């Protein structure tokens, strides 16, 4: 009990002072490396991603025009950032801390490596180390393939992963996979992260209230979590696995706030009748004036004249 209390107290004391704290990256994450060589293309792509996601706080590299926050975000061209190893930069971008947001859901790991490639271009003494792919792969030399299908009986999406090598195929077992559904502003994760079974299969439960398009189609994509072991394999496909959604326009109903053609019927009727009545009344008055005018014009007979005196 005392140790828990002590823990809480230490936590409360330490956490508020992020500014003075070093950002410690776990040792096993420090050594992470890109699987591809940084070149002009990765740098260009990284620059584009940087200008959308990072520039608002970190400023233009080399200019020192980063935001004056506490702790300061720092200029990527300076030692503050450049002294980090590739794996440390990757970890920091992925996880974030304090005001630095996590880019876990915003950027793919390839995109983060592109940003690092761009940032490293400001360091002339940087020499890139590349992760050897073959040695760390669980299925050396094989091409990993994924298949996605929808099982309507228990409304699950079944993924089957196979490692294909020279006409022979082995089921990919024990691989963690996540399933994402495409939405307007991002990807929605379906079910939890799951592990493939002995047959290389894994089933994801589709939520009952997941809307699809007008045909019930959804665009799904499956990815391996551990990209170091299985490579950045993903599978994108369209499945008829969701609810049929027929979008209704929000200006379809008749209402006071809607435009003239969509005004409530009683408003249109009352207005039209009112307008007709008003116009009719004006017409009537004009007719009467005309009558008086005609009477005034006509010559009276002697018998019709009234003698007032």
């Amino acid at each position, binding site marked *: 009990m005392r140790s828990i209390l002590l823990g*809480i107290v230490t*936590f409360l004391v330490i*956490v*508020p002072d*992020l500014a003075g704290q070093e950002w410690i990256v776990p040792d096993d994450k420090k050594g992470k490396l890109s699987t591809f060589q940084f070149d002009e293309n990765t740098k260009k792509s990284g620059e584009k991603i940087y200008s959308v996601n990072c520039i*608002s706080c970190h400023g233009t590299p080399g200019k020192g025009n980063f935001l004056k926050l506490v702790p300061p975000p720092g200029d990527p061209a300076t030692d503050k950032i450049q002294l980090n190893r590739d794996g440390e930069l990757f970890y920091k971008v992925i996880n974030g801390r*304090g*005001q630095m*947001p*996590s*880019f*876990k*859901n*915003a950027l793919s790991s390839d995109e983060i490596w592109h940003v690092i490639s761009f940032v490293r271009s400001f360091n002339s003494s940087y020499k890139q180390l590349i992760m050897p792919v073959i040695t760390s792969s669980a299925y050396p030399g094989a091409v990993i393939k994924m298949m996605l299908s929808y099982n309507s009986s228990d409304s699950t999406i079944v993924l089957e992963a196979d490692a294909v090598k020279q006409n022979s195929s082995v089921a990919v077992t024990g691989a963690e996979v996540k399933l994402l*559904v495409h*939405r*307007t*502003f*991002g*990807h*929605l*994760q379906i079910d939890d992260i799951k592990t493939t079974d002995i047959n290389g299969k894994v089933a994801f439960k589709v*939520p009952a*209230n*997941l*809307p699809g398009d007008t045909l019930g189609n959804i665009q799904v994509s499956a990815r391996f979590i551990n990209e170091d072991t299985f490579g950045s394999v993903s599978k994108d496909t369209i499945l008829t696995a969701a609810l049929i*959604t027929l*979008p209704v*326009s*929000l*200006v*379809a109903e008749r*209402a*006071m*706030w*809607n*435009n*003239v053609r969509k005004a409530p019927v009683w408003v249109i009727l009352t207005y039209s009748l009112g307008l007709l009545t008003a116009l009719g009344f004006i017409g009537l008055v004009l007719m009467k004036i005309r009558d008086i005018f005609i009477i005034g014009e006509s010559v009276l007979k002697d018998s019709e004249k009234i003698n007032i005196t």
Partner: protein
Amino acid sequence: MSEKKKKENPEDSKIDEILESSRRDFLKMVGIVGAASVAGGAAIYSGYRHEKAKSSGETIKVLTEDNRLVEIPKDQVKDYKPDLKVLQTRGRLGIKGKKWVMVIDLSKCRNARKCVAACQGAHHLRPYEYHINTLVMQESKNTPAYYMPKTCQHCDNPPCVSVCPVDATFKRQDGIVLIDNERCIGCRFCMAACPYSARMFHWQEPLDAEADKGKEYDVELNVPQKKGTISKCLFSADRVREETLPYCVSACPNGVFYFGDENENAVTNGTTKETVMLSELLEKNAGYRILDELGTKPRVYYLPPKNRIFDFKQGPATEYKETT
């Protein structure tokens, strides 16, 4: 004058006549020469353009709106800039098949004011002109206060639209309520009708009025702003058209804002970019809408202000931290 002269001296009138006729001839000549030179110039210019077009001869492939791949001469390519008519038409219609919805998590707002700044930057507003503002809320003396970002609620039953006498403010099929500054007469009925005080009035010449002069008015951005008219939160209609999160949503450093399409039952957090199911988010966090009892049916949901700061001090921006 000449009539008088004619009568006085017949000699003078003759000289006048000669002078008059020579002047007429001269003007005629000038006219002919001028017309000929204009026609000649035009002919040479059109010839030059024709030759230029022939000489370059390069074509590029372009995908048309109806998905046809066509080839057009390279020198005839012009940058597409939608004109006022296009901007007005598409601004009035909205985006088909969408029902935009925003969720604001009050437990995370720490008054960083990044949303306010991003919004004011995009819509050319002064620091004291708000489309979105963070308010300090306190239920009673003994409860800790919290911050509440307040935007236009984009009601499905908008009182502001009902009262507008000139159809300047309107609702679109995707749920966004907009104001057309080209139509607005500045009567401020909508300001009076809005229960959320979401609207502002340009009493003075707007910021950047000089710089924005001559720019095509975009009803989805309210730029250029116009003196004597209303302005309000637009759910960043120009950004959502490009499937990008609104200015305020993506500027927040604390993960306060979620934005998405109700038809897809999904909202995306502007900070973490994490997409979650709307129904689940509202249900698990007891989401609610402000002044729901008025029947305005807002399109903005709030998640309750749990995780409050107990030594609440109003002051500079504070960072959001998870407490255990």
